[in-house]
């Protein structure tokens, strides 16, 4: 078996005249977490649907856990778990009935299916609701049940399509804990997300996708490095005072983080230190009162925006930080 549990080369897919995927290559080493990061419509869900046998690509070769996705889809299906964006449970059946049915369809004996279903329902804190029809569940409960269902066969590879979209912060943190715990125990995770923070928190590799192409793929830390050095944010007591130092206002980045805050790109290393000193010196010399200043590493968000281009607006971009 190859070391990469997911090996995809040149996936393309068009819906009608719209070319959704324009040649996607993905390699996911066993036991790692890959975040497929991109704005809405980038091709994340289409990629996941193709990798999970739900959709046929127009071209490309995909091997999952050593099986060819097109030739041996059922072998692939027995190795993967999928939790999609939509709720994939029967609303009329109870949580437990859904779990038992899915267990049976994974070929477990009646006894095993029931035991495994109860076990997971308990682990995900749904015991009290186990016998209620799923349509009476809250959104968060349904997502938990969905995640639980994708774990029934304890698959070595789990696909999670935007697992935390629409969750409240507490549920999101718990979902992150679940994913971390799975990763610790050796499950390979491929998750899609619009949230940079999610990739930063969970992923070994962040693969940025936009307009059906992989833009870059690297560790979240190195993606941040690609932006260059640090960023100096200076908040002035009187924002208008900057007008007295025209060369500084010209040098400032064209983004305003907070009102009255100037941001400067600072190169790495010694030249960076000189830059910071010279900016500060200038302000002190001109007698401009500084309310506060911070020096920080660029966020993955900025790396993302720089790579994807500022004109594609994404919820992640709109959120700011």
């Amino acid at each position, binding site marked *: 078996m190859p070391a990469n549990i997911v090996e995809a080369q040149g996936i393309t897919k068009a819906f009608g005249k719209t070319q959704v995927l324009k040649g996607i290559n993905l390699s996911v080493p066993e036991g790692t977490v890959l975040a497929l990061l991109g704005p809405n419509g980038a091709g994340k869900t289409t990629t996941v649907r193709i990798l*999970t*046998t*739900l*959709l*046929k690509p127009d071209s490309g070769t995909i091997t999952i856990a050593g099986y060819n996705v097109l030739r041996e889809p*059922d*072998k692939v*299906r*027995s190795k*993967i778990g*999928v939790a*999609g964006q*939509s*709720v*994939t*449970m*029967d609303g*009329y*059946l109870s949580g437990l*009935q859904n779990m038992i*049915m*899915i*267990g*049976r*369809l*994974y*070929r*477990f*004996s009646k006894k*095993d*299916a029931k*035991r*495994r279903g109860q*076990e*997971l329902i308990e*682990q*995900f*804190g749904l015991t009290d609701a186990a016998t209620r*029809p799923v349509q009476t569940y809250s959104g*968060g409960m349904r997502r*938990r049940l969905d995640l639980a*269902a994708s*774990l029934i*066969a*304890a698959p070595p590879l789990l696909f999670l399509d935007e697992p935390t979209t629409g969750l409240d912060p*507490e*549920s999101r943190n*718990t*979902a992150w*804990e*679940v994913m971390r*715990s*799975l990763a610790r*125990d050796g*499950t390979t995770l491929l998750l899609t997300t619009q949230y940079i923070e999610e990739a930063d928190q969970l992923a070994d590799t962040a693969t940025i996708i936009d307009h059906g192409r992989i833009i870059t793929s690297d560790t979240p830390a190195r993606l941040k490095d690609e932006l260059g050095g640090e960023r100096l944010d200076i908040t002035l007591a009187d924002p208008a005072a900057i007008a007295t130092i025209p060369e500084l206002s010209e040098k400032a980045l064209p983004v305003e983080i907070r009102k009255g805050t100037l941001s400067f790109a600072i190169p790495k290393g010694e030249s960076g230190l000189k830059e910071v000193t010279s900016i500060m010196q200038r302000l002190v010399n001109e007698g401009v009162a500084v309310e506060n200043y911070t020096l920080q590493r660029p966020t993955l968000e900025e790396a993302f925006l720089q790579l994807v281009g500022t004109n594609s607006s994404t919820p992640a971009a709109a959120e700011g930080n």
Partner: protein
Amino acid sequence: MQAVPAIPAPSIPQPQRRPGVYWAFADTWELFKRSITQIFRTPAQLVTLVIMQPVLLIILFRYVFGGAVATGESNYANYLIPGIFAMNSILVATVASVGVANDMSSGIIDRLRSLPMVKSAILGGTILANAARCLAALAAMVAVGYLVGFRPHAGFGRWLAAIGLLVLVSYAFSWLLGALGLVAGSVEGAQQMGALVWPFTFVSSAFVTAQSMPGWLQGFASNQPVTQAIDATRTLLLGQSVGNHVVLTVIWCAGIVIVGTVLAGFLFRRKFN
């Protein structure tokens, strides 16, 4: 979410090893149980489809039109009720398109397709549940039939044959209509498709004899499958000679099942490729 689940669980079950044919039946059975649970969790649907509709059909045709119809049968209820039985088998089948369209437009289809299950069971379960629905409706109709004057002359064997035939007709047409549910696009679209069966239910020998129709309709009315099913049911239950009606109905059903399953398989693959 409160407690963070500890994963993986202590013991992961091993899948059972059985031949493919076993799984085709086992998976269909699982999905059949699901559909049956759905029926019982929607009492309104249960009452409408299984009791109201068939009973209203009997009352409507027995008392509203019954007086004006001449079929040569001294007891019109005896002529009418077997026809309504067969008509109901077809009407029940239209529920299959709705059920299938509903599954296709909800997230559950993704879950099922990502499982290593036999895919034909996805439709097969819904369609088998439809046959059960037909059986339940028949029970209600037999009771009401007696109340409105239906007096069959049939022993246990003939009853069994008639019921088996009616369920088979429903099952066969369910495959055809279930397949159409794959292209309906929405639940509403699937509901509209139900109208496709009207020529078969109404241009039949259910209410009047085919001979009473204009010549250009007679050919269709006397040879189409629903008329065969009605005549088979009628002759079986009224103690008449069944002729070749039963055999022809079974042949029709077999043909419709083959066309329905092939069409369903084709449309299913086309939809998801």
